[in-house]
C-alpha cells in the first residue's frame, strides 16, 4: 500500500440522516451531527441500544443509503461522490449471511471474485492462502447450507477478504454464534488487524468484544455519546461503583439521595451508587435495609457500566420500551 498512513481509514464529518416517513409516520432523524475519525489499522467497535442509529450508519457506510447531510471519506475517497473508488478498498460482512446457501462455498467465492474483478490466478492463490487460518479446508465443494453457523461465518470472512480490503465493516458478525465460535471469530479478526493492518469497524452489543477494541464509540438516539479507548472510557466513571439488587429499591434510593456527594441511579431493578466512602454506605444500608437487599457489591466500572451510565439503559432493552 503506497497510500499515506496518516489519512484516516474513515473520516465522518457532520453526518446526518433523516428517514422520509410514510403516510402515518412522521419523518425520523436517525443520525444527527456525527463526527468520527478512525485511523488506519484500528479495531473500532460501534455500540448503542437498538434504534440508536447503528444500522443506519452501517447502511450509509456500505453505500446502501445516501445521507441527508455531511461527508464520509474512506482512505481519502469521498464515499458519496465516488462510491466505487471508496468501495474497492472495503469489505462488508452483513448481519444476515450474504452467501447463496444453494451454492457451494467455492461457487460463492467465485461470484465474489467476478464482482470485484479479481484475476483468476490471484483468486486461486488467495483462496489457498485463506485455508490455513480458516477451517474450510475440506468443505470448499460443499453447499453453504450444510455448514455450521460458525463455519458459514468463516466462509463469509474469507469471501470478503478475497479482494484484500483495507477496511472491514462488520454488522454484529457474532450474532447467532456459540461462545466458542464467537471467541474464534474475534481472534481471527484480531489476527487480521495485526498481521495485515486491516482497519476493522464492527457493530456489537457484546461488551467482552468491545473491551478488546482499540476504540469504542457509543451511539444513542442518532448522536455519538463517546468515542475513545475502552480503558479511557471506563476511567471516565472514575470511582468505584456500588451495585444493589433487591426489593423496594425506591426507598433505599430516596434514603441515599439525601446523603451528600452521592450519585444514585435506579434502573432495570438495580441501584447504582457512585461516590466516596462506599464501604461505609454499604454498612449503613445493611443496618437499615438488610431485609430488602438481595445482593450488594462494589465493583470497578466496566465499559458496560459506562454504557449504562451514558445511555441510561441496559442493553437488552429497546429504546421504545424504556420511554
Amino acid at each position: 500500500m503506497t497510500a499515506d498512513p496518516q489519512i484516516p481509514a474513515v473520516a465522518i464529518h457532520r453526518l446526518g440522516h433523516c428517514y422520509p416517513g410514510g403516510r402515518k409516520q412522521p419523518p425520523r432523524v436517525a443520525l444527527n451531527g456525527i463526527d468520527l475519525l478512525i485511523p488506519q489499522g484500528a479495531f473500532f467497535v460501534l455500540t448503542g441500544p437498538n434504534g440508536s442509529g447503528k444500522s443506519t450508519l452501517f447502511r450509509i457506510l456500505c453505500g446502501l443509503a445516501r445521507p441527508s447531510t455531511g461527508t464520509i471519506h474512506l482512505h481519502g475517497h469521498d464515499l458519496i461522490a465516488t462510491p466505487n473508488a471508496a468501495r474497492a478498498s472495503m469489505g462488508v460482512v452483513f448481519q444476515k449471511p450474504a452467501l447463496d446457501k444453494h451454492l457451494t462455498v467455492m461457487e460463492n467465492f467465485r461470484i465474489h471474485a467476478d464482482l470485484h474483478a479479481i484475476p483468476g490466478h490471484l483468486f486461486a492463490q488467495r483462496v489457498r492462502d485463506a485455508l490455513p487460518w480458516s477451517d474450510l479446508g475440506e468443505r470448499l465443494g460443499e453447499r453453504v447450507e450444510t455448514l455450521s453457523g460458525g463455519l458459514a461465518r468463516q466462509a463469509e470472512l474469507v469471501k470478503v477478504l478475497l479482494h484484500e480490503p483495507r477496511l472491514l465493516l462488520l454488522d454484529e458478525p457474532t450474532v447467532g454464534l456459540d461462545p466458542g465460535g464467537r471467541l474464534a471469530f474475534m481472534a481471527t479478526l484480531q489476527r487480521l488487524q495485526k498481521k495485515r493492518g486491516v482497519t476493522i469497524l464492527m457493530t456489537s452489543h457484546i461488551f467482552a468484544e468491545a473491551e478488546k477494541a482499540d476504540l469504542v464509540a457509543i451511539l444513542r438516539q442518532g448522536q455519538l455519546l463517546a468515542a475513545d479507548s475502552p480503558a479511557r472510557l471506563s476511567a471516565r466513571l472514575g470511582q468505584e461503583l456500588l451495585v444493589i439488587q433487591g426489593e423496594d429499591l425506591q426507598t433505599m434510593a430516596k434514603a441515599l439521595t439525601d446523603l451528600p456527594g452521592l450519585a444514585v441511579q435506579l434502573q432495570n431493578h438495580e441501584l447504582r451508587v457512585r461516590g466516596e466512602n462506599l464501604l461505609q454506605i454499604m454498612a449503613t444500608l445493611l443496618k437499615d435495609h438488610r431485609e430488602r437487599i438481595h445482593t450488594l457489591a462494589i465493583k470497578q466500572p466496566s465499559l458496560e457500566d459506562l454504557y449504562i451510565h451514558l445511555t441510561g439503559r441496559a442493553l437488552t432493552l429497546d429504546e421504545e420500551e424504556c420511554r
Partner: protein
Amino acid sequence: MIRPALTLARRELVRFFRQPHRVVGSLAQPLLIWAFLGAGFSPSFRAPGLANVSYAEYFYPGMLLMLMLFAGIFSTITLIEDRAQGLMQGVLASPAPRMAIVLGKVAGGMAIAMLQAAPLLLAAPFLAIPLTFSGLIWILIGFAIACLGFTALGFLIAWNMESTAGFHAIMSVFLMPLWMLSGALFPMDHAPGWLWALMTVNPVTHALTLIRTPLYHPASEFLATTAYWNALLIAATWAGLCLWLALWRVNRVEQGKTMP
C-alpha cells in the same frame, strides 16, 4: 459490467437446476393446465373462424407464454429475500455496477425460460402445426421479448417489495390477468367490447402474437404484414420500457430526507 452480469446469470441457472421442485413446478404447471384445459375444452371449443383448431392446439402458444411468465416470476421473487438477507447484499456493497443485477437476472431468467420452452416446441408437429425453420427463429425472438418483458416487470415489482407475500398478491391480481387477457385462453375477436379493449391495450397480447403467428405462417408471409410488425413494435417497446425502468430503479440509492 459484463463479468458481474454473467456471474449473476450463471448463478440463476445453477440455482434453478439445483432445486428440482422449481424445475418441476415451473414446467409442470403450464403442462398440466394445458393437458387439462385441452382435454376438457377441446370437445366443446368451437371458435368462429377456427373450425379446425382443437382447444389443445389453440392453447399451445398460450401455454408457452405462461412458461415465460413463470420463469420471470420465479427468478425475480427470490430478489426480495436475497436483498435483505442473502447474496444480493454483497452485490450491492461491491463496486460492480448495480445494472449488472438487472442484466444478470434478465439473462438468467431468459436462459431458464428458453431451456424449458425449446423442448416443448417438439410438440408442434404432433399438433399438426406446420412449423418451419424460419418460423422457429421468429418464435425464439418472440420468446426472448416476452421473457425480457416478464422478467424486467417482475424485477421492478420485487425490488419495491418487503415481503414475498406482497409479491404473491401482485402476481394474482396483476401478472396472471396480464397473461389471461392476452388471448392465451380464448380468442379476443368475439369478446365483449370492454374486454376486447383491455386485451388490445395489453402488451402481452402482442407478445403472444409474436409466438402464435410464426407457428402457422412462413416468415416471408407474416413479415409482409403490418399486423405482425405492429405486434413486434408494441411488445418490444413494452419489454424495453420495463427493462429501462428496472435499470433506473436499481440505480436509485435511498436518499436521506432534508434534516428538519
